[in-house]
């Protein structure tokens, strides 16, 4: 290999970190919990990658770098009082550093960070003051040679999800990223996120697991301490209903025998027996205990489509997609309806795509094609897209170097990393893609690339997306 500097890729999620070295872990990243875990069984503390060594997942307590630091009702004019939670932002840097230290060490990636480049993902609408701390850790603590920071969805255009054979990817793409903390709808036009049209629903995998935990604790077993186990049960049993009313009736009519009801056999760690779904008709010995999953299988994921089911006053996913598309340039809306991609763990639930398709079909204009592309491995999609982006020859142009940081501090990053923030005055000339309602979205006459500080060739433009179009 001719690569002298290795590039480290971190899809740094609130639940798991997908991490690897470009050229080595391109297909399969290391996936480690972004958590510090205290186990009840041995009273030991496991940091990030060490969680895999834990033998007994009973009553785990979690400390998460992406922690909610408080939720309260804030009055933000002109919207009036609204409830905001600050979860999903990186706030516990002590925990994050402990996990990253382990990740970069010989125990996992074995990289010399001072001789490497870094591509790291951050939450959508990450706060500027928190972004500064990212920069500080990257350059002051780990001393990376260069780095690039962006949201996960902004990488998806480079990845496998919407790649069609022998065709250049669509200029318009709408990414639905349903993760641990939130669900985001993120339109991308010519490689750039249209931040004015990005929408967020405050429902993520964490809330769904907690709701399931609470529901079964009320109805059957007290599982309130068993977040880890309930998350596994959620992943094993839950699905998105394609006909909610019908499925409710099915479960009601014969609660113990119907096509939906399942028994989940609890894990028994002392017997090294993982949890699993009981096979139909399978008889079990006395040492087995089971949890019956009836309408719980689909009423929990249903919250993504109907947040009001738990009293959350937010539109469901399909209506939010329609609301986002309505904010985009009118002549391009059809292209967004036809290029919807799903990433994030919740989209792995069976039925998710079909339900969304059906609802979107009824919301879209009749003459409009609606197409939803599901990822085979939605948890890894952003990572694999990051690999594809980092492998491009122009990638180094987008990164900020250690020297630039030493010279200008976080200003170097603010200037170069394009995100939701308004472009700073001195570099603002003529590049404001899709400002306002997106009406001026296609500034064809203008170069709207993420500022490649070094040169402005057609190659460096628009993260490659618009390059061929401009030349033709």
């Amino acid at each position, binding site marked *: 290999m001719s690569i002298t500097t290795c590039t480290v890729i971190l899809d740094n999620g609130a639940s798991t970190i997908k991490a690897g070295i470009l050229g080595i872990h391109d297909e399969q990243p290391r996936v480690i919990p972004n958590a510090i875990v205290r186990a009840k069984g041995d009273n030991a503390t496991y940091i990030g990658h060490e969680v895999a060594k834990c033998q007994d997942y009973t009553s785990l307590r979690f400390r998460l770098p992406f*922690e909610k630091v408080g939720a309260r009702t804030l009055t933000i004019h002109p919207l009036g009082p609204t409830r905001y939670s600050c979860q999903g932002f990186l706030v516990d840097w002590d925990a994050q550093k402990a996990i990253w230290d382990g990740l970069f060490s010989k125990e996992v990636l074995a990289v010399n960070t001072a001789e490497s480049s870094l591509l790291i993902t951050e939450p959508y609408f990450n706060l500027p003051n928190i972004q500064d701390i990212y920069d500080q850790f990257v350059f*002051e603590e780990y001393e990376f040679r260069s780095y690039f920071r962006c949201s996960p969805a902004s990488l998806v255009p480079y990845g496998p999800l919407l790649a069609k054979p022998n065709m250049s990817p669509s200029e318009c793409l709408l990414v639905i990223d349903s993760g641990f903390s939130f669900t985001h709808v993120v339109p991308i036009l010519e490689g750039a996120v249209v931040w004015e049209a990005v*929408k967020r629903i405050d429902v993520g995998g964490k809330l769904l697991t907690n709701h399931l935990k609470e529901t079964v604790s009320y109805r059957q077993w007290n599982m309130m301490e068993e977040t880890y186990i309930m998350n596994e049960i959620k992943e094993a049993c839950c699905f998105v209903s394609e006909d909610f009313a019908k499925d409710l009736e099915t479960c009601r009519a014969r609660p113990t025998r119907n096509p939906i009801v399942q028994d989940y056999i609890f894990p028994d760690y002392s017997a090294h027996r993982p949890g699993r779904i009981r096979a139909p008709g399978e008889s079990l010995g006395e040492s087995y205990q089971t949890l019956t999953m009836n309408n719980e299988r689909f009423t929990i994921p249903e919250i993504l489509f109907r947040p009001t089911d*738990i009293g959350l006053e937010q539109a*469901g996913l399909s209506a939010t997609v329609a609301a986002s598309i309505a904010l985009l340039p009118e002549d391009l809306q059809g292209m967004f309806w036809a290029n919807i991609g799903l990433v994030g763990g919740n989209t792995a639930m069976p039925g998710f795509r079909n339900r969304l398709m059906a609802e979107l079909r009824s919301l879209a204009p009749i003459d409009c094609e609606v197409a939803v592309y599901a990822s085979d491995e939605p948890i890894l999609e952003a990572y694999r897209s990051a690999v594809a982006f980092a492998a491009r020859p122009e990638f180094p142009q987008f990164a900020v170097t250690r020297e630039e940081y030493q010279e200008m501090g976080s200003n170097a990053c603010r200037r170069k990393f394009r995100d939701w923030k308004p472009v700073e005055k001195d570099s603002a000339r003529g590049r404001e893609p899709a400002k306002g309602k997106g009406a001026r979205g296609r500034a064809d006459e203008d170069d709207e690339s993420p500022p490649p500080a070094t040169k402005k060739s057609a190659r460096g433009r628009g993260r490659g997306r618009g390059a061929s179009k401009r030349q033709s």
Partner: protein
Amino acid sequence: MPPARRQPVRQAQNTSGPLDPDVISKRTKRHLDELERSNYSEPTGSGAHAGVSGEPDEEDEGVAPGGRTTKGRARQATISDKRQWDGKKPKKSTMNIRTAILYKKNLAVLLDESGIEQMPPGVPTYLRAVASAPLEPPRLLCSVCGYWGKYKCKRCAMPYCDINCEGIHNETRCERRVI
């Protein structure tokens, strides 16, 4: 395992008249906050005093409660300093890094510092990106069994589906919270 069969239920005090709608909506909000906690293990909404404070439990921090910081106070213990890998001795961190590790800031401070509330109206921010209110009215699901909840408890407004679930509701959950 194995876990205990359904916990002893909190006995509801079914004594006075219907609850104030404000109290009901506060409880719903509090419940939503609970559902976002990392170590959510004990519903807090029981009894009439619930839903007042709006602050999450101290224990929400999870592991190492000793390391928790409140306003302006440095952490007493850090976990990142404790563990070294590869036998390397710890690097001397910069002031910026020490500050980030030692002082964990709360939401109000972070939002305040970020300046996003003051950004001009056209600028999209975390606060403005939230999904709009739903167009359709909420549908009622039985708070006991999950089936359609045709009826609403006269005291606490939680939906239930039939006389059986109404009985369970009255015994266990009435007044605890809404929806």
